[in-house]
């Protein structure tokens, strides 16, 4: 095989071509054709990604600058790609899961008119392109281009059904919140440029290891980068956009808001681990934020009744777990969880899409129930997803989550506290996932008669991706079997050139105890959910704490009161006083003065020849004196 790495640029270019064809030809392409083009280019990228992965696994890597992107005296910046173990793994996730979701979309979006259908696929392709750019970029600027691109596509796709105002509101919210985070990222990049005049990963990281940054620089840069990550990866305080982002089509929620885009922050921190490892303070902040987000989102998910909202908060919570892993220096576990989470969360989102499809657009689980007998494939695959995310031994989620928990346990000092909170969150996860499963798929159907008549299993284009993702959710964990269970953690070995895991190794006996503990508790949580919700008949109005959770801790309301309202008041004030009275007053005043002045000056032209002559003489005298005395 010739060196496939020379063709690595095709991976992002193919989806870009797909975007152009679908975007430009949206008025002329038939639905089938645009679906085939959209999925086909991603499949081609996936195939190249697999070849690249194989090549990288056998020791290849690529650092290539294709052309000068920015070239000014003090800053040379090429359009660089970097393909190594970390990015090649993400390439597989993005193109692999992305392809399945494209295929799924061909069926899910089938009721759309052909023009919108092509538009939808062009957005999806553009998203895949941006995401690939993000992970393949060889410096922070190229990453930032992809970073902004995925934000844009997220905005476009959340607002895809733009005729409903709440969708466009959700899209705006996502975009604005992402922008707040992006500002942090951008400032960090500027800081790096100011310090060492380059943004190339290798240059920056070697500069960091040679202590060319002061402690303040490192802490500042990493904190700003982390602010970027909180925006993109939906962490406290910028997480509220993600649940609202569920306004978009369900495959979009699966692709962008669960499997790929929201893991961009994880990727960025894992990529910059050389920087982050140097700042104890930032790592502590990341740990705390990750843990707090995981707990908060999990608690909210318990009382949500919208099937996609539950999954959205679950995503936020799982991302919190990943940040917890990053904060404890357990980079491999974070990437591992990104991988497994991409499988089972995409699976569950697509499963929920299948349910919504069958229910004719209904998303409220209180109106579902007993769907298992109508849609067996969806039900079984969804159950596998729930088991995986809960961390039942043998499924992928178990290995990755266990690794995160073990890493947290091993942290010196407050490690046990972190572990306890994380474990509690894991129990909440199992509880709310199975609450969702039991309410939706077991018991009696609670919807209208018409809906019940309409219930059906989804077409093959939707169920096949579900089955593939279910299989991956089961076996995906076996690439990272820990040593305690007789594995050799292939993933950690694969990633070892880039990610030096700082996680503290525990005694095998300790690990066994932790695994047993979490497994028993998780099973107990599932049984509790089963008892409580197997014959769900609806519940009364939530009171007290439940009400607090149902209203998401009133975080949105607090943000509205603390940020939005004062900002609106301030802008109203600026509008009324500064703009209307000050600026408009000045501009209009100038106009009025000129108007008045010319009105007065006009009187001079009165048609009296004598006056003209007098003025002429005065003018000549003035000129005369100027000449004389100047």
């Amino acid at each position: 095989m010739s060196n496939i790495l020379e063709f690595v640029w095709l991976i992002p270019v193919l989806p870009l071509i797909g975007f152009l064809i679908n975007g430009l030809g949206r008025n002329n392409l038939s639905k089938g054709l645009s679906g085939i083009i959209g999925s086909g280019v991603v499949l081609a990228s996936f195939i190249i990604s697999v070849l690249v992965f194989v090549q990288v696994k056998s020791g290849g890597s690529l650092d290539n600058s294709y052309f000068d992107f920015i070239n000014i005296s003090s800053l040379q910046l090429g359009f660089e790609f970097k393909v190594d173990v970390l990015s090649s793994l993400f390439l597989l996730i993005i193109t692999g899961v992305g392809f399945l979701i494209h295929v799924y979309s061909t069926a899910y979006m089938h009721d759309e008119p052909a023009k919108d259908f092509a538009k939808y696929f062009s957005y999806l392709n553009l998203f895949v392109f941006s995401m690939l750019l993000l992970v393949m970029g060889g410096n922070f600027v190229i990453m930032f281009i992809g970073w902004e691109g995925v934000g844009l596509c997220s905005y476009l796709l959340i607002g895809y059904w733009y005729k409903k105002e709440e969708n466009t509101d959700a899209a705006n919210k996502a975009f604005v919140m992402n922008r707040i985070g992006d500002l942090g990222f951008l400032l960090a990049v500027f800081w790096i440029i100011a310090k060492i005049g380059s943004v190339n990963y290798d240059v920056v990281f070697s500069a960091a290891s040679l202590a060319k940054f002061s402690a303040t620089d490192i802490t500042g840069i990493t904190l700003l980068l982390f602010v970027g990550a909180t925006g993109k990866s939906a962490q406290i305080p910028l997480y509220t956009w993600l649940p609202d982002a569920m306004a978009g089509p369900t495959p979009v929620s699966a692709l962008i808001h669960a499997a790929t885009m929201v893991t961009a922050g994880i990727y960025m921190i894992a990529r910059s681990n050389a920087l982050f490892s140097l700042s104890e303070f930032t790592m502590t902040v990341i740990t705390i934020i990750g843990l707090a987000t995981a707990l908060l989102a999990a608690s909210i998910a318990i009382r949500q009744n919208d099937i996609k909202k539950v999954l959205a908060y679950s995503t936020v919570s799982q991302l919190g777990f990943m940040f917890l892993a990053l904060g404890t220096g357990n980079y491999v576990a974070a990437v591992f969880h990104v991988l497994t989470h991409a499988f089972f969360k995409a699976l569950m989102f697509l499963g929920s899409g299948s349910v919504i499809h069958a229910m004719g657009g209904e998303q409220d689980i209180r109106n579902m129930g007993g769907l298992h007998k109508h849609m067996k494939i969806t039900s079984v695959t969804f159950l596998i997803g729930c088991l995986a995310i809960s961390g039942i031994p043998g499924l992928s989620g178990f290995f990755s989550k266990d690794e995160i928990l073990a890493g947290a346990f091993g942290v010196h000092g407050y490690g046990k506290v972190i572990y306890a909170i994380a474990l509690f969150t894991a129990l909440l996860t199992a509880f709310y996932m199975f609450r969702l499963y039991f309410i939706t798929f077991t018991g009696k159907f609670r919807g209208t008669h018409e809906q019940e008549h309409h219930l059906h299993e989804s077409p093959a284009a939707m169920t096949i991706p579900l089955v593939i993702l279910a299989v991956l959710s089961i076996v995906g964990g076996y690439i990272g079997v820990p040593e305690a269970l007789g594995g050799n953690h292939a993933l950690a070995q694969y990633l070892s050139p880039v990610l030096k895991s700082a996680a503290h190794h525990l005694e095998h006996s300790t690990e066994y105890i932790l695994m047993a503990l979490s497994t028993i508790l998780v099973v107990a949580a599932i049984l509790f959910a089963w008892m409580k919700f197997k014959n769900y008949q609806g519940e009364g109005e939530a009171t007290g704490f439940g009400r607090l959770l149902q209203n998401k801790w009133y975080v949105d309301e607090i943000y509205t009161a603390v940020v939005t309202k004062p900002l609106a008041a301030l802008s109203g004030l600026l509008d009324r006083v500064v703009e209307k009275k000050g600026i408009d007053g000045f501009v209009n005043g100038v106009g009025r003065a000129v108007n008045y002045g010319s009105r007065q000056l006009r009187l001079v032209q009165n048609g009296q020849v004598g006056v003209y002559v007098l003025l002429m003489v005065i003018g000549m005298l003035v000129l005369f004196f100027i000449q004389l005395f100047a």
Partner: protein
Amino acid sequence: MDIKAYLVLSLTLFTIGIIGVLVRRNAILVFMCIELMLNAVNLLMVAFSKMHAVSPVMKASATYASDAQIFVFFIMVVAAAEVSVGLAIIVMLYRNTHSVDINFLNRLKN
């Protein structure tokens, strides 16, 4: 003769002309004052021509000291033509308004 006498005379004539243009309302008088100013300048020109003619460089030339004087003849010819046009306008003015009051020209305004 001293050049200053010519300057004073010329300046006096010119000032009389200006004042006449400004204060008089009879179009013919205004016109005459304009001619007065013109001729004041002519006088000045001839005087300066004579003054500069004493420079030795100019003496070498065959036609020294005569340029400005010839120029003044031209001015007088052109002025005569101008006078005829100006008088014609005044005649027309008189025919239309039965007056040579310059304030009738205020109609230029509209």
